[in-house]
């Protein structure tokens, strides 16, 4: 038996070494989670406007074009679930916060907690943004190893990126996402069909996320903060392919929240006509130029309010 264990351990040494290297990589190399967490903490006293949301907001709202001191804490696939936890964590430390911008995408209100998108990310939010994630139990061993929660092929890609660029942070100091200028999809009609299909979840139950939004609004109201619920510009074909009934339900839900609450503004830019083909990187993300245009537009509205 000793021979068996000895041989097994020797066999597993390379596996443990790779695991260890990956763990050290995730624990020591700065990434979007650690970077944004560190940036928001260092800017606590200055931040006046805070941007939440998924990749649409991350790559679409550039604080540089805001008059007020703005920080973008949005991230790729960041659902309202994490937006709420982030708001709860930081709001008391932001004495000058006046505006909260919440990006609502087509799938935001119907998103299910702990979806496959959230499953690995929640450990990074917990470990690297210091959030208390209710869905992670104390007995969940995954919380002790970030190397094990992420798919290994993605880790290898990230590691390659680190070796090539010396960083895996894809965000500017103000939280706005760095875009690859060369990565602009030429055929937006075709990508619109694919993305619209991908985003069509056929879910109409908004109750959980509507309640979540209400809690976030209540928290902001309590602190005298204005809330801006925004739908960002998207490519026309993509928009037209989405379920009309669901779009109407999103519109009604957000309008109701605006009507029923003080200090809430619902702004629907999804079909804003001033956005042309070249403003879009693909079906639902803006280019740097598009983001500049949108951020200026949003800033003007914020100043009016």
């Amino acid at each position, binding site marked *: *038996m000793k*021979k*068996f264990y000895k041989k*097994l351990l020797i*066999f597993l040494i*390379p*596996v443990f070494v*790779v695991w260890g290297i990956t763990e050290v990589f995730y624990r020591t190399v700065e990434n979007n989670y650690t970077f944004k967490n560190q940036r928001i903490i260092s800017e606590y006293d200055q931040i006046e406007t805070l941007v939440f949301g998924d990749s649409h907001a991350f790559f679409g709202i550039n604080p540089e074009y805001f008059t007020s001191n703005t920080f973008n804490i949005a991230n790729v696939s960041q659902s309202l679930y994490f937006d709420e936890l982030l708001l709860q964590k930081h709001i008391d430390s932001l004495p000058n916060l006046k505006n909260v911008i919440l990006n609502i995408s087509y799938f935001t209100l119907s998103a299910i907690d702990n979806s*496959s998108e959230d*499953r690995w990310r929640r450990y990074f939010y917990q470990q690297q943004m210091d959030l208390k994630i209710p869905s992670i139990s104390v007995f969940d*061993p*995954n919380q002790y*190893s970030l190397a*094990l929660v992420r*798919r*290994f*092929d993605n880790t*290898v890609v990230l590691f390659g990126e680190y070796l090539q660029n010396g960083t895996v942070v894809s965000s500017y100091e103000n939280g706005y996402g760095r875009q690859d200028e060369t990565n602009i999809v030429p055929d937006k009609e075709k990508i619109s069909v694919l993305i619209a*299909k991908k985003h069509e979840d056929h879910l109409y139950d908004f109750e959980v996320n509507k309640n979540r939004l209400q809690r976030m609004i209540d928290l902001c109201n309590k602190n005298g903060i204005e809330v801006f619920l925004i739908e960002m510009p998207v490519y026309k074909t993509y928009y037209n392919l989405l379920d009309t009934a669901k779009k109407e339900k999103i519109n009604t839900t957000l309008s109701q929240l605006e009507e029923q609450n003080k200090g809430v503004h619902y702004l629907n830019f999804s079909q804003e006509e001033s956005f042309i083909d070249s403003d879009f990187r693909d079906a639902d993300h803006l280019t740097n130029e598009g983001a500049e245009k949108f951020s200026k537009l949003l800033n003007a509205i914020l100043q009016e309010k």
Partner: protein
Amino acid sequence: MLFNTIDFAIFFPTVLLLYWTVFKKSLPLQNLFLVVVSYVFYAFWDWRFLSLIFLSSIVDYSVGLWLGKTNDIRKRKILLGISLVFNLGLLMTFKYFNFFVETFVDAFSLFGTPLNVTSWNILLPVGISFYTFQTMSYTIDLYRRKIEPTHNIVAFFAFVSFFPQLVAGPIERASHLLPQFKVKRKFNYNESVDGLRLILGGLFKKMVIADNCALLANSIFENYEVASGSTLFFGAVFFAFQIYGDFSGYSDIAIGTARLMGFDLMKNFNYPYLSQNLSEFWRRWHISLSTWFRDYVYIPLGGSRVSKSRLVFNVFIVFIVSGLWHGANLTFVFWGFIHALFVIPVILFFKKETPFAKDKKLPTISQFLKIVITFFIVVIAWVFFRSENLTMAFSYIGEIFSSSFFTMPLIPRSGIILLLIYMIIEWIQRHRDHVLDIGYINNKWFRYAIYYLVVFAIFYYAGDLQPFIYFQF
């Protein structure tokens, strides 16, 4: 607790270490330890359903004791009836209640009498079809006097709840597994190494083959209305490998895990996609279930020693019940029906089979064609298994048999290449115990290179974590 999670990677080595050290000296303690850890293993899903396993164990243990005490035929029948009614009652309540209520309501609606009956929201306990069948085999074999009743309650509880095969089989027979709880297990180096190979091969099948095929199959089945016949055909092929990798992978891990603890579980899969006809397919696919149905349903019905018309009837009964075992839906019944349809001609007309020669590197043309035809039938039948309802299944298959079958499929080539490579490996290993049974390779470094390649593939090419399909049965 899933085998392919970090939870199990912590749970099992801990159990194994305690099993071979702290509890090694006392067999009763070792068995008790197995019962406790098996219940903990199951509790990770839902601790409330532990009561069902406990009740099933206590009922069949007691029935077994009483069966051992009486020779009165009438009493013995009553006792067997108690066991069958209890276990099938559990299945009926938790698995089939809504199916029968809904079918009943549909039937009445068809005759213009709509019934206002509400179905219940009943949770399906994981593995209920497996452990109830396992305990039923104990009481049926006792009734038939094929085995003696056990007086060792801990051993019996361990037999019913043995964690490697508790939730998805192999469905063991008491005559094979129960005696293993009554003798002192000895650590065997070679068996343990092979157990590890089984676990590694099983993880590869599950995480690389099944989970990647699942992504492709799901996207094609979810958008079947807009896909071409050729794409739909490959969608069904991907599902065929998803369910194979998923279930046989689980079985391999279960057998390997048990082997590391000194137990021998029955082989559940034997390269089923190399079958040359449907009858052979059922001797290679989910062997523990097909032999269960053979011994406890087919043979009691008369088996093959009956008239041809009765034989046809018996085969249909067995396959339809087998379909229903998989799930409470008409799609499963139809899946069983199709298999029966193609098994019957083999039983009636094609007695002679041509096994693969050990010394031949390739199959003969005739063997190859038979494999392809059998695989095609199996794939088409899987469409019923995967579809949400019969309308979807017929519509899906209708498109496969349309002219669009001859267009270029919209599928990633890498998926097909992966499956082809995997089938070549299975062909090479066809006479071996399992796909990673490579102990015969003398060159140690070559063997280790293969192990590391498999480990790398599991980590690098693993698809997104998917639940095991057979847990729902």
